[in-house]
């Protein structure tokens, strides 16, 4: 559990990895002591009930009791079946399975405060994933597939096996391609990571600290006109959906980028007070070990109308990026610099062509956002904080051989 004490605008926090009440009281005393030595900040304070309940809370069904009622033996069997299903996709070229795994968890929590907050949540999640190894000659490549749901009954093992096989096999024979300036199509799994980066720049904590490329850009065009980025934890299709944030505030739909314009930042109670914008119900807890910060949990770019195939069909020459390497070291949400390793397939005459590897794609996040010329209709709901969707960026520098 985590305990926050605020006295005279000084905040102390302490945590304990136990539900023992004596240890909890020790943690409370520690939090109180920590507050005594903390620097005062006029904006520090717990959220009040009127603010927390300013909107009606969404009623979300994010718990499936089947996650606990399905016998463990059946779950083990799912991992074995996923392994065999993936091998069966191509007995000749899929040489082995690095791992086939099943996992699930049920989480339950409550938040109670002296300001009248009293909220509870419960959620379940189950997933199965497989990493296939495929090869021809001396070459071996790996690729993964996964399936997620609220319980094991919601998992689609066949889809995971198909994805792992396709993503592995289509990169066999990849070589480094030529350097060029090309339109880039991002696979939905890749774009989900990019969307997460953009949301990090919309984080109220980062903006207050000056650690965002969007500092002082509220109301300005930061993306192509067709781009609307939404944070909406009230949408139950997100695996991270929830009616309340990490401080007990009602969550809500927030347009971060509205038709290309930076429209709003994500805030918790503290950053909302300090910025004057108010909380957006975006307090995020990384666990019980630290006080809530600010974070996105349910990001979605409003999709377009065309499939990935239709988007690719309109490109004479380009690069389809299936995976990125070194995204977090090669992309800065502060400066916007972007230089990241990529594997994927060339696009020639409207079709996916030969596989390429060890390419470097470079631009700035600012230019990439303004260069989004098409968004696919192919939304993929992932276990992370963002929905994946095909993205076409009109031009990026590609370095290869």
């Amino acid at each position, binding site marked *: 559990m985590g305990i926050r004490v605020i006295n005279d605008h000084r905040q102390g926090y302490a945590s304990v990895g136990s539900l023992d009440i004596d240890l*909890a009281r020790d943690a409370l005393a520690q939090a109180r002591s920590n507050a005594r030595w903390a620097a005062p900040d006029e904006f520090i304070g717990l959220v009040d009930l009127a603010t927390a309940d300013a909107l009606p809370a969404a009623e979300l069904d994010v718990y499936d009791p089947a996650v606990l009622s399905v016998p463990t033996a059946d*779950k083990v069997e799912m991992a074995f079946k996923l*392994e065999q299903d993936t091998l069966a996709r191509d007995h000749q070229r899929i040489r082995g399975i690095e791992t086939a795994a099943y996992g699930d968890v*049920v989480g339950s*929590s409550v*938040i*109670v*405060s002296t300001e009248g*907050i009293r909220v509870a949540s419960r959620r379940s999640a189950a997933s199965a994933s497989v990493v296939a190894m495929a090869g021809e000659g001396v070459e071996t490549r790996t690729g993964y597939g996964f399936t997620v749901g609220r319980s094991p009954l919601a998992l689609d093992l066949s889809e995971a096996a198909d994805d792992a096989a396709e993503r592995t096999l289509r990169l066999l024979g990849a070589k480094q391609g030529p350097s060029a300036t090309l339109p880039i199509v991002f696979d939905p799994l890749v774009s989900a990571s990019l969307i997460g980066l953009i949301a990090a720049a919309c984080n109220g904590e980062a903006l207050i600290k000056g650690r965002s490329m969007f500092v002082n850009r509220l109301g300005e065009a930061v993306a192509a006109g067709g781009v609307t980025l939404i944070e909406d934890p009230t949408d139950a299709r997100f695996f991270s959906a929830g009616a309340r944030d990490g401080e007990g505030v009602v969550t809500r739909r927030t347009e971060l980028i509205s038709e290309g314009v930076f429209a709003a930042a994500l805030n918790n109670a503290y950053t909302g007070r300090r910025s004057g914008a108010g909380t957006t119900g975006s307090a995020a807890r990384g666990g019980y070990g630290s006080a809530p910060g600010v974070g996105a949990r349910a990001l979605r770019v409003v999709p377009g109308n065309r499939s990935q195939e239709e988007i690719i069909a309109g490109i004479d020459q380009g690069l389809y990026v299936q995976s990125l390497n070194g995204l977090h070291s090669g992309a800065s949400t502060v400066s916007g610099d972007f230089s990241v390793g990529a594997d994927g397939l060339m696009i020639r005459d409207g079709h996916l062509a030969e596989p390429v590897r060890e390419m470097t794609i470079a631009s700035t996040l600012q230019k990439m956002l303004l260069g989004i010329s098409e968004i696919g209709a192919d939304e993929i709901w992932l276990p992370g904080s963002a929905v994946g969707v095909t993205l076409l960026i009109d031009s990026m520098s590609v370095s290869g051989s």
Partner: protein
Amino acid sequence: MPERSHDELYAIADALIADAQDGEQVEVYVGSVSIPTSTSSTPHCTR
């Protein structure tokens, strides 16, 4: 293994809130997870 009920978690949080001193704000977050099932076919193991 089932996670703790909300009533159990509330009982712990309420006990701490009752200990709050005059003039101080206290917030208690109590979370509990089931022991996760994690299975992998290679190597063959379950926990």
